[in-house]
């Protein structure tokens, strides 16, 4: 326990040191404070904007889009991934097109979607769903394909029907990897949402940051960036928590088998 506290203390010291460095560099005008205001000022602005509701409102809008796109991708790609993992013909049918579209940077399709849908909610949700699709699809497919054949054979030996094998063996055994796809996809959703909001939006945290920069409200801009960092950290923590509670049983159960 004491060792734990001492290691944490070192980490916190370093963080405080960086904050102090930021403060000193800015106050001594080593980098123009116009562009790089002292961190104390940024933090106060952050606090004020959080209290008066400006930042929470923007971030709720962004989170709505992020989860909208993410769940759309989950709803479409998990079934497709399972089908591709289970049935060879379906895999053969969709594999070439996935391989071809996958290397395309998702934000590059923003202008195309904007042509058809303008800068509304649908545009962002579609682009986010597109970006999330590939990690989810590929991990689901791999997870289903990599299920230990012994498990499937055993279930078959005990007279389980095909449907039962899928539901009772293949899905639970590949859940871990399916979740890995989600874990990769959610941070991507955040990135793409911010890009989409910076390119074309009327609100949202990405738009807020860029707008503050253009208005030269620099402490407000940093406050927005702090919030993005907090959101990124929170999403990460959420995923780690879900991984522990939902998938924790998985390791114990399946590592014993394989």
């Amino acid at each position, binding site marked *: 326990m004491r060792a734990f506290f001492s290691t944490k203390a070192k980490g916190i010291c370093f963080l405080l040191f960086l904050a102090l460095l930021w403060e000193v560099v800015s106050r001594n005008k080593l980098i123009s404070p116009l562009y790089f205001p002292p961190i104390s000022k940024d933090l106060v602005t952050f606090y004020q904007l959080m209290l008066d509701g400006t930042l929470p409102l923007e971030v709720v809008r962004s989170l709505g889009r992020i989860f909208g796109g993410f769940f759309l991708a989950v709803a479409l790609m998990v079934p497709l991934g399972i089908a591709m993992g289970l049935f060879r013909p379906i895999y053969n049918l969709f594999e070439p097109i996935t391989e071809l579209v996958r290397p395309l940077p998702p934000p590059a399709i923003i202008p195309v979607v904007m042509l058809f849908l303008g800068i509304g909610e649908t545009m962002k949700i579609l682009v986010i769903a597109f970006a999330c699709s590939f990690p989810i699809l590929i991990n689901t497919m791999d997870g289903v394909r990599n299920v230990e054949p012994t498990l499937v054979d055993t279930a078959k030996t005990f007279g389980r029907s095909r449907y039962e094998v899928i539901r009772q063996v293949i899905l639970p055994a590949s859940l871990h990897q399916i979740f890995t796809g989600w874990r990769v996809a959610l941070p991507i959703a955040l990135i793409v949402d911010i890009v989409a909001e910076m390119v074309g939006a009327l609100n949202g945290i990405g738009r807020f940051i*860029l707008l503050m920069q253009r208005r030269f409200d620099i402490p407000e801009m940093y406050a927005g960036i702090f919030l993005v960092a907090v959101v990124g950290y929170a999403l990460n923590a959420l995923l780690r928590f879900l991984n522990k509670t939902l998938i924790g049983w998985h390791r114990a159960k399946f590592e014993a088998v394989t």
Partner: protein
Amino acid sequence: MTGQSIKRMVFQTRISGYLLLLFLIFLWEVLPRSGIVYARYFPPFSMVVGALLEGIRSTEILRQTAISMYRAFCGYCLAIIIGVTLGTLTGTIRWVSDFLDITVELLRPMPSVALVPIAILLFGTSNTYNISIITFGCTWPIFVNTFEGTRSIDTQWIDTARVYGATRFDLLRKVVVPAALPYIVSGLRVSLATAIIIVTVTEMLASFKGLGFFIMDTYNAYLVPQMYSGILTIGLVGYGLNWLFMTAEGRFMAWHKGWTAKSV
């Protein structure tokens, strides 16, 4: 050949997938031409290819690609240097990881694009702006993988090397780095894709050159076939670079397979 065996051949191999691809391209050609999809927004495939060829002939596309690749390459190389160095240091020296731990945990989930406005303020729309964001985004996968790689080394190897009188530097050069290399390489692969994404994004948001700029510029000028040709180029570049990486990995990392079969 009987109908049955043709059917089997089509569905048991990827031929069906390529046929689907051809069919989609056919749709891309026919739907706009027949007016079912608005052709101003979704020009037929042949027009997009025509615009691409025209762009290549006038060297416009080639120049924009070269600029984007230059930026991505610089950022990627910087990220390799920073990521591998920091990852090795934190992975092998206890107090370094104690100090950096919390800072890394806070910065890593930060979406790199959120830093775009800061970079614009500090660097304007110069290459430094693109490169700094690319470096930030690409460093994390390399850093984390290097860290994991150096951490996962079998302590027996280190002890054995010590017994044979390896100095600290020998240990690093002959045991730690080779053993961590497969991890580092998988970090490099993730970062390559990240570099292409970020260079596109930064150019879309604020630049006057590069493929990302080209897409936004043609979008704003309503030159829709040209816009699609830019997107097609980015896709092709991404596909090509990934292919190059996989080929190089297969060639240079082949030694690793038999050597450490059980550890990875």
